[in-house]
């Protein structure tokens, strides 16, 4: 089956100021239903790229296509109905004064009728497990709960692409786990949904379909996780670590114990060894 391109980035160049470019000629494709992680050290331009993909920023040169449609001033409304971003800071993206108001914000912007809106808000609050908290104010919620509300607000818009820009980096370990599970559930429920996750979490990247590494304003790697993290030395050079499971696998491989590629968790490795 031929995979359908949903995002196409072509020779993208961008700088906040004229004389300094942060993204130097970036090109990649993302396919429908893929779960791609985007990694790279702080300041490598990941958030900038996310903003370019939803046309919050305008490229200096180069093009971005979403479902074949070029991003520009005219297509902005269409784009916003296809792509959404969950940001890093749970507080600064909580717009409504209560959970339900916040989930409704995007729907209000689309001028959706009130009775439809009520149903939609409840439906998606349920999906992220926040239906018991509809009247709660942000101050009464944990970071993970606020992020779940943000995700509900975006899911409610029925988008095709969701970008998570370090959505778990300000959460406690439980919050991280909550959101990770939620993303996986989301993908399971709607395989058509394309997810781009910007993250520092190498373990998460290892579980995704594909990893894109940004380094020095360029796409440094763009491949399946096994290939990307193959060379530990190379990763070290750009200040990145490799997944813990992979380290164990490498150590085992050095002792002539080869673990199959499909096994991606510590438990899996342990079970395999016990067989």
């Amino acid at each position: 089956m031929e995979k359908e391109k949903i995002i196409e980035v072509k020779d993208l160049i961008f700088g906040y100021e004229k004389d300094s470019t942060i993204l130097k000629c970036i090109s990649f494709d993302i396919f429908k239903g893929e779960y791609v992680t985007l990694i790279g050290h702080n300041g490598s331009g990941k958030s900038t790229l996310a903003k370019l993909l939803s046309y919050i920023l305008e490229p200096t040169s180069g093009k971005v296509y979403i479902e074949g449609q070029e991003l520009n001033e005219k297509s902005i409304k269409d784009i916003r109905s296809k792509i959404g971003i969950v940001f890093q800071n749970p507080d600064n993206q909580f717009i409504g004064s209560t959970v339900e108001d916040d989930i409704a914000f995007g729907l209000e912007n689309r001028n959706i009728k009130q009775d439809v809106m009520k149903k939609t808000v409840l439906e998606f609050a349920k999906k992220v497990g926040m239906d018991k908290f509809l009247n709660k104010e942000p101050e009464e919620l944990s970071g993970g709960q606020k992020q779940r509300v943000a995700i509900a607000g975006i899911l409610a818009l029925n988008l095709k692409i969701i970008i998570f820009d370090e959505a778990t980096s300000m959460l406690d370990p439980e919050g991280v786990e909550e959101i990770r599970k939620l993303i996986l559930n989301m993908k399971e429920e709607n395989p058509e949904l394309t997810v781009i996750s910007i993250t520092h979490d190498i373990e998460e990247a290892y579980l995704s379909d594909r990893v894109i590494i940004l380094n020095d304003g360029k796409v440094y790697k763009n491949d399946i996780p096994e290939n990307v993290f193959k060379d530990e030395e190379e990763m070290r050079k750009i200040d990145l670590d490799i997944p813990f499971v992979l380290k164990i696998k490498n150590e085992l491989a050095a002792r002539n114990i080869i673990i199959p590629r499909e096994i991606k968790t510590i438990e899996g490795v342990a079970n395999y060894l016990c067989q």
Partner: protein
Amino acid sequence: MRSDILGKYTPYNSIVHRLDPRFKFFALILLMVIVFLPFGNYTNRFIVLGILSLIIGIIMIVGKVSFKSFFRSLSSLWLMFIFLLIFMFFIPTKGEYPIYSFNENYTLYWDNLLQVLHIIIRLVLMIALTIILTSTTLPMDITYALDWYLTPLKVVKFPTQVVSLTISLALRFIPTLLNEANRIMNAQKSRGVDYNRGFFVAKIKSITTLIIPLLVSCFSRSDELAIAMEARGYDPYKTRSRYKSLHFTYKDLLALLFIILVAGLVITFSILSSTIGGFDDVINFIWGIKTI
């Protein structure tokens, strides 16, 4: 720092909670005005204020307003009350009932004390009214009410939705920023800044260590907020639908009639007392009309 200085919404389901915020907003303004009307002599004033206090007190009980947070709000005003009490010694008055004659040039009259008491009661009533509104009405609903009152301005292309959204965002971020201020203060304290000691210059210096980081974070927050809003399709020039709508029911109508009745009586009394005189005279006047 506390975030409930002027009342925080308490999620009960009392009749006061369920009333239309537009009505509550109107009643608040009306009652505030009434409290400040002139009523002639002190007997008149205290009788009217007494009745109003009773009504407001009953509303507070019905609306399950926390008296604890009410008194806490008052406690932030005690300095002002003390100031007023001291001030009273310096207001020259010619009263009828002296408390104490210091010398032949200076006598303290009961009138001074009554005047200060009068001011204090009115302030307390105003605070009580504000707390009733804020603790029984969600900030968002207050904004909706405000938005409704601004609607006529749409005719002159005044961006009412933008204004009400801005206000609701400001209200939404007050607790967040107070938390942040607390965090910054703790961080600075651990670096040796003392917010409690020192006089004017030292105080200002220590406050700067709070204000500057707070401002910086405020700007970066508003920047991120604007981006988040844009990403979710916000456009200030487009019509947006509303998730919540306000309903004016017969209960609101009854409450409105009641408030207007009270206000009407008080206003009439105020006019009568300014043209006729003391409470006794007003009563006699009304009695006189009846017997005629």
